């Protein structure tokens, strides 16, 4: 062995030594690295096959992620059995861990979605796929899950894994939205139909407005017709009054003719007064100022009174008037407003006389018992000109009179029947007419039949007593307080026979002064409507120093308030102007016969 060979072999040994040391260091490093946890997996050769074992520590982050994530994570075996699931899925499905492991995932799926899930699962064994299914939870809620299935590599627990997202909230929102969409649609439909209805209502109310307008025009027309008619009706008696007065003034006439003229003037005046009274009655009815004064009233007597009252007029027209008594006398006393029943009857009879020239006027009454509350029915029948069918209702309207242009020429302004209607309705009854044009008419009205036992009835008295003078104690000293001269003259004329002295005052101050000077005055006729100091105030001042003198207030106003006020201020009685001799006489008897 040469030196060179020795050196060479030594070198080789050194090199080998070096290499071995290196390998040793490597092995040591490997062990250290494993010990220090710097290694994640170990490769093991087994039967010529390398198997990689990942260390638990290396998987920790994934496990943490999988357990913490907000999605459910499940792995299924090839048979569809759940072999693993995370906490989140347990929470979602609300079934305990022990129970869910080993069960079939398809058991959780709702019946309708099972087929869909089977398809998803079959695909999920070999490739990624996703789809939505519904599951039933442990507390029997239906939840919507979006599933993402992916196949797992072999050698791992399970064959497919599922990531399940709960989209129930989204789904519910979606359903809510679609529901609210539906309700919105519904509301739109409802609103539309409401609008349509409103439109229809509008068009109806429009029609009503047109009808109302026509009615207003009609009532306007009636008013104008009424005014024209009225002015004619007032003018006629006025012409008579003025004309005959003129005649009386200018010519020296025989007494007989004078008397005739005076009668004509009187009649004209009465007619005017009637018109005005009717107007006042009607306006009171319409203003609701009239009261119903119920009292015991014998119907039979009222009808007889009407009979007696109109008999002369009927006789004059060579006609007849007949009463039909439909009740035994003991049943004819009822509780009602006597004055109004009389007014109704007299208006109807007046009309019957006015509109007929022949035959009989029949007045009657009977009881209708078939209704719940028994009613008394009155009728007034005539054989006159009758009323056309189409006017049977409108004749009761204010201002309405059957067109008179070629049928009749009768006085009247068409107020009578509307007064009748107003009174009947106030008494709680109704009024109607039956007629055949040209063959007479029958007017009916009803009032409630409230029977009373008392038969004591005041007989209406508008009778002129010729014996007044005899009945009162003495001739009276009278003061007439009146600012209108003609009115004062008329009053003086009326009381002339009962007076020993008549004084005049044209205002309240004068009246007070005269009375102070004449304490022996018996009667004051006090006008209410005077300038400066009215009748109420004057009376009050008189009463301060004279409590005995009889004061009768007079007013053209027929309102109850005037009556009340005058009595309050100290008057003894109240009368409506113009003064009626008969009524005044009654008063005089009342106040001055007692004293004597």
């Amino acid at each position, binding site marked *: 062995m040469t030196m060179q060979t020795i050196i060479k072999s030594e070198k080789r040994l050194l090199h080998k030594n070096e290499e071995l040391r*290196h390998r040793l260091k490597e092995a040591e*490093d490997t062990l250290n690295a494993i010990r220090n*946890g710097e290694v*994640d997996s170990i490769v093991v050769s087994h039967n010529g096959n390398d198997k990689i074992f990942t260390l638990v520590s*290396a998987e920790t982050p994934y496990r943490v992620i999988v357990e913490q994530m907000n999605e459910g994570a499940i792995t299924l075996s090839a048979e569809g059995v759940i072999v693993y699931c995370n906490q989140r899925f347990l929470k979602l499905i609300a079934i305990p861990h022990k129970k869910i492991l080993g069960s079939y995932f398809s058991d959780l799926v709702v019946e309708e979605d099972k087929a869909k899930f089977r398809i998803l699962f079959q695909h999920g064994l070999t490739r990624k796929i996703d789809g939505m299914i519904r599951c039933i939870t442990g507390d029997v809620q239906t939840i919507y899950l979006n599933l993402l299935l992916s196949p797992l590599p072999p050698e791992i627990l399970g064959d497919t894994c599922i990531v399940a997202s709960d989209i129930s909230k989204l789904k519910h929102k979606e359903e809510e939205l679609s529901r609210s969409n539906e309700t919105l649609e519904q509301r739109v439909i409802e609103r539309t139909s409401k609008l349509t209805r409103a439109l229809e209502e509008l068009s109806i109310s429009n029609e009503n407005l047109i009808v109302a307008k026509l009615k207003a025009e009609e009532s306007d027309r009636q008013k104008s017709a009424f005014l024209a008619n009225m002015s004619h009706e007032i003018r006629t008696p006025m012409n008579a009054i003025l004309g005959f007065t003129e005649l009386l003034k200018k010519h020296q006439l025989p007494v007989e003719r004078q008397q005739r003229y005076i009668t004509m003037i009187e009649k004209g005046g009465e007619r005017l007064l009637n018109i005005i009274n009717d107007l006042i009655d009607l306006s009171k009815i319409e203003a609701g100022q009239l009261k119903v004064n119920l009292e015991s009233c014998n119907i039979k007597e009222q009808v007889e009174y009407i009979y007696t009252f109109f008999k002369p007029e009927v006789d004059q027209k060579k006609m007849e008037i007949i009463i039909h008594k439909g009740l035994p006398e003991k049943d004819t006393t009822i509780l009602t407003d006597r004055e109004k029943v009389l007014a109704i009857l007299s208006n109807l009879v007046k009309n019957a006389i006015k509109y007929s020239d022949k035959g009989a006027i029949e007045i009657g009454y009977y009881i209708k018992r078939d209704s719940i509350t028994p009613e008394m029915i009155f009728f007034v029948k005539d054989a006159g000109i009758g009323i056309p069918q189409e006017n049977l209702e409108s004749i009761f309207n204010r201002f309405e009179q059957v067109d008179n242009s070629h049928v009749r020429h009768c006085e009247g302004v068409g107020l009578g029947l509307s007064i009748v209607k107003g009174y009947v309705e106030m008494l709680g009854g109704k009024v109607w007419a039956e007629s055949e044009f040209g063959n007479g008419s029958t007017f009916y009205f009803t009032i409630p039949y409230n029977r009373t036992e008392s038969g004591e009835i005041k007989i209406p008295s508008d009778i002129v007593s010729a014996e007044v003078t005899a009945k009162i104690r003495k001739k009276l000293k009278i003061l007439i307080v009146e600012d209108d001269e003609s009115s004062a003259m008329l009053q003086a004329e009326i009381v002339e026979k009962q007076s020993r002295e008549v004084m005049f005052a044209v205002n309240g101050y004068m009246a007070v002064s005269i009375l102070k000077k004449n304490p022996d005055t018996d009667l004051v006729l006090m006008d209410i409507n005077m300038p400066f100091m009215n009748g109420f105030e004057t009376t009050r001042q008189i009463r301060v120093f004279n409590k005995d003198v009889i004061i009768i207030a007079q007013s053209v106003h027929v309102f109850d308030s005037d009556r009340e006020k005058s009595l309050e201020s100290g008057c003894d009685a109240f009368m409506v102007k113009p003064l009626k001799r008969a009524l005044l006489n009654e008063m005089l008897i009342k106040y001055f016969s007692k004293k004597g």
Partner: protein
Amino acid sequence: MKATTLKFEENTIESSRDYYRLRLFVTGSTPNSVRAIANIKKICEEYLNGRYELDVVDLYEKPNLAKGEQIMAAPTLIKKHPLPLRRVIGNMSNTERVLFGLDLKPKSGI
């Protein structure tokens, strides 16, 4: 002719003793694998700038590549060139040991 020259030059560089061919075996994105990739990249940039080639192999994806390389664990770095073949195991956080494995000297004073 130019292409031939370039190829020649490449071959020269790659086969020169200064050129390093490295292979890092990892298992997916396990913590030490991720760390190892980051560490070795940093070391290579610092010590072998421009003269190295790093090949990262995921054993999960290509388990068969472990065969014949005598891989025992992951991560493992293998210096395939220049010879001799060397292995470094772990997450490559110990730079000194890595440099020793690569037959490189640490930069002194740093």
